[in-house]
């Protein structure tokens, strides 16, 4: 049986599918890979965000770079494929941080933590229910999603692969 090739969701990319799909976000450091699914329509989407917010003084070349414009864009793209935006569920992982020892490091440098907080806050604002998330720590992660089984897996070099959740609404 042929093995389906996952859609690689690269940095700042947003991908949306209707029906069964495989997604993969490889090499997440402070970035976050987020998958959303609409159980009513079977529409799903994944985004790989880099930074919490877009720059006020600069045009946005790729909305998927930023949490504050990327997540609404993902929802918009899913709605265009037929998703019911009131029924979306999501899962996400990433937001790793450098390991700091006793240093008085500015929170501005904590890109991972800022990304994770921005995603959490915006999902709440958009009323999208989070099924599971795994953020923080200092390991790089890869997130894979199989929409046919609604399984979200997270893998890191040191901790191996584990099932993060099943995306049931």
């Amino acid at each position, binding site marked *: 049986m042929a093995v389906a090739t996952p859609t690689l969701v690269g940095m700042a990319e947003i991908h949306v599918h209707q029906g069964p799909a495989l997604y993969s976000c490889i090499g*997440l450091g402070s970035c976050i890979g987020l998958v959303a699914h609409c159980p009513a329509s079977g529409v799903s989407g994944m985004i790989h965000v880099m930074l919490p917010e877009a*720059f006020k003084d600069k045009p946005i070349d790729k909305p998927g770079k930023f949490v504050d414009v990327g997540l609404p864009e993902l929802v918009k793209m899913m709605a265009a494929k037929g998703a019911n935006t009131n029924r979306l569920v999501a899962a996400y992982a990433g937001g790793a941080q*450098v*390991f700091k*020892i006793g*240093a*008085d*490091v*500015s929170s501005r440098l904590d890109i991972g933590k800022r990304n994770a907080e921005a995603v959490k806050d915006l999902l709440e604002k958009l009323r999208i229910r989070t099924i599971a998330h795994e953020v923080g720590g200092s390991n*790089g992660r890869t997130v894979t999603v199989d929409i046919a089984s609604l399984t979200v897996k997270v893998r890191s070099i040191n901790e191996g692969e584990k099932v993060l959740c099943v995306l049931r609404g």
Partner: protein
Amino acid sequence: MGQTITLEDVVKRTPDLPSIPAAALKVMRETDESTSNAASIAKTLSQDQALSARVLRLANSAYYGLSKRVTNLQESVVILGMRCVRNLCMVAATYPWMSRKLDGYCLGPKAMWSHSFGTALAGQLIARMSKKASEDVVFTAGLLHDIGKVALSVWLENKTSAIVQYAELAQVSFDVAERRILGYDHCEVGEHLGRQWNLPDEIVAAVRWHHDPDQCQPSSNIVDCVHLGNFLTMAMGFGLGGDGLHYSVCENSFVRLGLQPDALDQITDQFVTGYEEYEKLFEDLSAA
């Protein structure tokens, strides 16, 4: 780690240890001299045919979008400039061995390359913003900052996870854990290797102190640029291995460079965009 091996042994006994072609090092030095010109750089480069061929191939890559094909080295220096050819020369000299996988650090094929080139680019960008360090020197130092891993990888025997576990238990960064377990870290191994290769002192300092720039005496803006470039590259997930982000970031590097931490997001955005553009160059590197 199975056997006790000294730092000196790592550098002496590692099989298939890479080196920088002598012609590449000469080009690097010559471009810093006021007497150099396109003809002299081309003459030096032409002493190494394999390196010359790779540099020409890179000069003709889609990335530079030249209207006509460059067929000789002197022409490539005239069209692209000495600084650009110097950097291409270092890229051509390091890519063949940096793109190999490093099992000891759980780095797959091209992961070390992706991280090193990312650090070179991010460091160069930081040097440009701060105006306090030579962009070209930072580029080379960024490219070479993790050379110690290339030598040490063989001896780690896939024990990176154990070092990470120790780092987490002892609440120390990965380089500190390396020192406590092995007696030295990849930065010290890199320093030895850099001296063996006869690299300039400012580049050896960046290799040695890229995780701890406050310890570099006297302080060096080149080291600070490489440290922050390395931090950004890790944060963006370029070539993360088993050591992941188990390192510290030094805020004093921002202060010494006169940069505000608030500038970090802008730098990150510019860095990632710049890296994506360079992927055209990587296609030609793979073929070269």
